[in-house]
């Protein structure tokens, strides 16, 4: 399973990937992107099975990345891992077709409980 993890913080990408491994997804093949625009390029090229994205990023935000994908007919499953998880952001994420939004800080248990239902 190919997954793109997009976050402008290198250390946060490392933490997301480490937590995915701790949650049992150590078989995922993960590609990193440092902002929304880079993620869009990588998603178009490698056609991943799943995208996990931060919300606030330079060049292109996570929500704009999701909108861009859907606008070009790309229905890759998409979810957010963000430092803010306000009800407004959750509503907007859902409206644009995101599967879920995990707010930082998170644990491996939260990742597992949230992601597992979509894997099966």
């Amino acid at each position, binding site marked *: 399973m190919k997954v793109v993890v997009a976050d402008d913080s290198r250390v946060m990408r490392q*933490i997301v990937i*480490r*937590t995915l491994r*701790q949650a049992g997804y150590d078989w995922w093949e993960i590609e990193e992107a440092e902002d929304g625009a880079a993620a869009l390029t990588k998603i178009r090229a490698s056609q991943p099975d799943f995208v996990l994205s931060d919300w606030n990023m330079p060049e292109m935000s996570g929500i704009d990345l999701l909108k861009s994908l859907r606008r070009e007919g790309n229905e890759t499953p998409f979810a957010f891992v963000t430092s803010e*998880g306000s009800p407004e952001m959750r509503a907007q994420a859902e409206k644009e077709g995101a599967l879920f939004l995990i707010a930082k*800080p998170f*644990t491996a248990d939260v990742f597992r409980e949230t992601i597992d239902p979509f894997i099966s």
Partner: protein
Amino acid sequence: MSADATRPTPVPSAFEVRELFEGLLGRTVEWTAMSGVVDPIDGATVGAYTNDFGVVKALVLCDIALTARAGSAIALLPQMGAEDTIKNGLVTAAQFDNLAEILNVAGSMFNRPNAPHIRLDTTYAPRETLPADVAKWTLVPASRIDGVLTIQGYGEGRISVVVAY
């Protein structure tokens, strides 16, 4: 600020602070209460959190030891580098950037249902001049929690969390 903000911004508990660091660093972190405070004059990384109107509502202060040790531990940088920083008092760019990322996520400790929405606005490096509206809150005696965080494999550092009132 949302219209339903009916409660003041909470001062996080020691448990919440410890959990935040433990979760992000991926290693055991212990909390010990302390009677002193982190004073920016001694050198501290300061995260200033503002509400939706740009008013400073909370601060998180980490001394140089915590900046070096947590900023190294989160990226698995060598512990010896952190010790060098503490010895010479000069935080590296990577340690500072990494701690700033922790302080960004730390904003979640202040955001509760019915409390005003606040977020990290600026992170000040040790010995950087603090603006007056930040500096005035650093040493207030109330509405705060102060402690020592001990990071497994890296050692301890001091933290103060202050909520403006």
